[in-house]
């Protein structure tokens, strides 16, 4: 099933900058799709169009009616005056759900990202990785069919990023959610995705597609395997070609 379909989508900002041109894209239910590209290639803009946070200046975007979206920003974007559980239940609160149910589902979402017991902690009291986990829990609490992530781990140290990558994959496998993940890291995109779209800049467009057939969650030692290295090389080549074009 196609969750979101983009046909000939272009985006021009009020300043005249052409951020995207001629993007055709089908997001299929259950896939883990990465948008990979250098900064300025419009990948974040594309994600915002998919989310409905911005409107395309050209082309059409069609969305499945049953779609419920969760969005994870580059920063954790938590409300600093609210504790973890209040941050997580915010989307449910905005939707007018009963308080008791909000609390129960938010607590479950926190447990799902490995933060059971941190319900009453304030963002200030948590590490960068934990804050990002709270942010992911907030995106999951509405039980979305589509999870959109805009370079969520870019600001974290490598070890934390690896752990969050593994946990995200486990979550993807466990919940069947569809993920669209924006990143500028070849290694991260290969490790996580079932499909990678390589983007080129000026104007932003999709330049190549790489499929990753490896089973998820990734087997032990996948990061050092020959298959992983070969995929990274292929993706890097595609990215370099896109940047030359």
């Amino acid at each position, binding site marked *: 099933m196609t969750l979101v379909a983009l046909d000939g989508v272009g985006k021009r900002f009020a300043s005249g900058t052409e951020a995207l041109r001629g993007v055709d894209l089908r997001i299929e239910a259950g896939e883990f799709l990465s948008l990979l590209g250098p900064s300025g290639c419009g990948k974040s803009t594309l994600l915002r169009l998919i*989310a*409905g*946070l911005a409107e395309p200046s050209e082309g059409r975007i069609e969305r499945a009616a049953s779609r419920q*979206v969760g*969005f994870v*920003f580059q*920063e954790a*974007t938590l*409300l*600093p*005056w*609210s504790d973890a559980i209040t941050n997580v239940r*915010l*989307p449910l*609160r*905005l*939707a007018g759900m009963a308080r008791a149910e909000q609390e129960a589902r938010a607590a479950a979402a926190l447990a799902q990202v490995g933060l059971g017991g941190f319900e009453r902690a*304030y*963002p*200030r009291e948590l590490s960068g990785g934990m804050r990002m986990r709270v942010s992911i829990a907030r995106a999951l609490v*509405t039980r979305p069919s589509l999870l959109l992530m805009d370079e969520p781990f870019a600001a974290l140290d490598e070890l934390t990023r690896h752990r969050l990558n593994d946990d995200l994959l486990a979550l993807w496998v466990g919940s069947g959610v569809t993920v669209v993940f924006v990143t500028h890291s070849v290694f991260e995109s290969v490790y996580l995705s079932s499909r990678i779209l390589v983007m080129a800049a000026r104007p932003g467009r999709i330049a190549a597609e790489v499929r990753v057939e490896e089973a998820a969650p990734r087997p032990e030692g996948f990061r050092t395997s020959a298959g992983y290295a070969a995929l990274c090389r292929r993706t890097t080549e595609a990215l370099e070609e896109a940047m030359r074009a």
Partner: protein
Amino acid sequence: MRRWADWLAPALVGLLVLGGWEAAVRLLEVPAYQVPGPVAIARALVEDWPLFRSSMLVTLKIALLALLLAVTLGGLLAVLFAQSRWVERAFFPYAVVLQVTPVVAIAPLILIWVDDVTISLLICAWIVAFFPILSNTVLGLNSADRNHVELFRLYGATRWQTLWLLRLPGALPFFLAGLRVAGGLALIGAVVAEFVAGAGGTGSGLAFRILEAGYQLKIPRMFAALALISALGIAIFAVLGLVQHLLLRRWHESAMRPEG
């Protein structure tokens, strides 16, 4: 240890200054109607305490009521301004006009137009106190993080929800900073207005006690009233500082203790 020193150092300086002052007045035999020493001032304060106490309560009442009005009206106006750029553009200049016109110049007019002295004092003090609350709160309401605003939009938040759950809590540190400034200004406004009114009688405040003591050349009493006004100002500042700390300590940088 550090906190102890925080108290001890200024207390020592205060004692030294007061001691030096008393010693200088005695050694140089300065008459009390020119410069009274701290002991003479303290004596005046104790002797006339019932009078001072009621005057202090009058001034405090005016200042606190003015502050309450400033918080209510300043806060409501700020929310109104934040709802629409157009409203803000249209009305903000007039708030500025009200702010930059010296209260000493407006006070006589207000005293003529309003029969009740207490109410005119209240209006004067309010005029001085409300602007920092208004301008700070407007700034705070408009400072919401862009990503937070998008997050609320993504989850279909209503205007009211965005105001209540995002803009108002985000504006709180700004509002509280304005409140601390406004607290001192409300007292100043009240004292200035009392001076202009110059109204005597039992229901008059500390400013009138200063005027009265000046006419009677009871200089220690002047100083005593002055000291009480300072004490009131310090007390208001300290209480508002405590309120600020209690409201922000869990989440805002300004109220965090440095770790380690």
